[in-house]
């Protein structure tokens, strides 16, 4: 299955812009961005995302909370979630992976390889299913 619709949530406008530029310039995706978890959760069902690209730490609803909430909705229980985080502790990545995250990408990331990384994660995620 081809990856088309990506939901991105990050409270930092710089990161949102860089992610948007990366995906626009180096890929061909439909990207919907949100500055916080609550607005993302409100709108995701209309957008029908195939993959979640989430900041770990956000005001209000955190990235992992947003993912958990989306996964509870029927049809989204197996949606892959990639976390973009500036938290460098190994424990954060370990916990997320244990909970079933598709991948954890540490900030700062390289914009031109972000698309390749996302594609690769998407493919291996689907291969496992």
């Amino acid at each position, binding site marked *: 299955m081809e990856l088309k619709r990506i939901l991105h949530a990050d409270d930092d406008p710089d990161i949102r812009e*860089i992610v948007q530029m990366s995906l626009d310039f180096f890929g061909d995706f439909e990207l919907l961005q949100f500055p916080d978890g609550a607005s993302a959760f409100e709108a995701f069902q209309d957008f029908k995302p195939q993959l979640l690209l989430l900041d770990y730490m956000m005001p209000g609803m955190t990235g992992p909370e947003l993912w958990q909430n989306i996964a509870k909705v029927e049809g989204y229980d197996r949606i892959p979630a990639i976390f973009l985080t500036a938290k460098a502790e190994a424990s954060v990545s370990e916990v997320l992976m244990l909970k079933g995250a598709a991948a954890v990408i540490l900030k700062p990331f*390289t914009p031109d390889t972000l698309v390749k990384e996302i594609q690769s994660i998407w493919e291996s995620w689907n291969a496992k299913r």
Partner: protein
Amino acid sequence: MIWKFARNISHSYVTFATSVAVICLSVGFILMQREDASYLKGQRIAANAEIRQTANELREKLFGMGLVAERLAAFARNNDTYSQEAIDQIGGQLVRHHPEVISVALAPDLVVSHVTPRTGNQKVVGTIYWQVPGQFVGIARAYRDRAPVFVGPINLLQGGRGYILRYPVFKPGKYSDTGNFWGVVSVVLAEKGLLPARAADPHTGELPPRVALREISRDGRPRQHLAGDPSVFASNPVTETISVVGGHWQIAAVPAGGWAAHSPRSPWIVGSAALISILLASAILMIRHYAVKSHETFNVLSHAIESLEEGFLLFDRDNKLLMANKRVAEYYRIAPEKLVPGLPYDEMVRHAIRRQPAETVEGTVVELPGAEVTLNAEMAEMAEAEDGVQQLVDGRWLKTSNAVTPEGYIVGVRFDVSAQKSAQLAAEAATRQQSEFLSTVSHELRTPLTAIAGRAAFLAKAGNLPASKQLMAAIRKDEPDLAEIENLAQAQIESIAGQGQKIINASELLLSLVNDLLDWAKAEGSELKVVPEVVLANDIAVNIVDEMKIQAQAKGLSLICMCAPARVMADPSRLRQVIYNLVGNAIKFTNKGTITVTVRNKGARVIIGVEDTGVGIAQENIDMIFERFKQVDGSDTRSFGGFGLGLTIARRIVELHGGRLTVTSKLGEGSRFEFDLPKASAAASQAATKAAEKAEREARTAAALAEHEADDSSLETART
């Protein structure tokens, strides 16, 4: 010896021991007196028995003598002639039965005519009594009394000494002028035959009592001494009176050695009593001595244990208290009067221990709360004499060290390790905080770095950007449209400039973070220095408000300054840093409303405040905000970036100026940060003004010189 023991014993015990000795001696004395009385009584009984036996023998002997005399008298009265054979027959029986009877004689008309036995007594025959005065006295008395008379001891005609029973014989019809006195019958008894000597007791070797005999009158007065030592009668003798041959005899006896003052056993009794007294007194004093010694040893031990800085406990096999010091009472919150032997351990610590490590899992201490678990663990620990740590309800930590004595008792020591424990907990907290800080630093640095690296990456590959590709395509057209190219170039330039500006912004954020870190490091190491000078606080505040107005307006906030002119002694760059930090925080934590910066004079101080209508701070978090690495919201939902060092640094800077940074806040309504600085004195202000004027003059001079040099230089150029 006793007094050696008595030296450390109280007077009362010495008195007690002495009393016991005296009582014991008194009992001994009483026993001795009783023994003496009993012994004396025994002596008297023995003497009585002796004189009774003697009396019986005398009675029997004299009765025999009297009987024979009576028979011979009857024979004389009834016959006129007297055959020797008849006399031998009558007297012979007596002599045979009583060998001490020397002779029996008939003396009609007081001339001895017959004697029996004849052997040894022949020369007596023919003795005319009135010619022998020594013999006649008794005969005269018998005649006078007309009754038998017993006399002696006297010298006998046959030799030796002896006693003689004179039995007067009266024969009717004859000798009417002498009252029919016929003559006398005499029975002679050997001197030693009256009271024969007794042998010593074959069993005891005891000599027989001394016995004496005397004749007494009817009224009891002594008449004549008959036998034995006359002194016996003067020696409080045992006496018995017998009536024999018409007279009364008194027999007296005293023990051979006289009446004993004491029983032979009395010295033993007294000696034993004395010995027992000494032994008892010694025993009492010794027991007391060792009791005192033991008590002293116990006291020394108790005092030593009391002096310990640590808690000391001693329990028996049933976990009941034997000994504990006051420190234990303090640790376990027990009234000292309740800390008594017999107190069960569980009762003692039930309300005192909050928790202690109950078990360890791979070296990790698992602390279990709850009295039951704690108690069980503690009991098990006590039983196994293990060491551990326990926390008291008052928060203190005790290190417990227990051991089992050879008697099976449990001895425990409790050390207050609160200080070490606090240090340990503080160190752990510091390590944790440091770790959190590093995590925060990493997070906060990575965010602007992501922006910088990301945007730089686009710029590095600018040729691949769609806008670049469009521009290149427009240029490469066969008939390039210059207007289109210019538009596309303009858009590309703006895009690149925008990215550059955003890189600059991110770099500035990064730089401010690094500066914060450096300032904090200096503040921590006391290297943060301020160089105070006279500055206009209101100028600095106004400048900052102007600078940050755009940032505030971007969030829809109004930022105003209500600043009165105020000269303060402050390091201008540091003062600016503090106000900048406070205003920055206010913008960061305020979503709507107004931020007001105030500068006002108050006596010798200038008060600078920053007030916002932001999220505010909960009362319980007020103290936390000045702590290093702390943001009130430390969770993953934290809304605001930054290290949380700004306020720590700001407070330090204010303190270096001799002021104090405080905060008042209400959650949801806003906060007010306020600090005070010393107002610059008039002299300092004047000096500062002069210095400023001088600096201005020097600047003007320098500018004039420079201008002059420039003119010269242009002239030179013109000349060449």
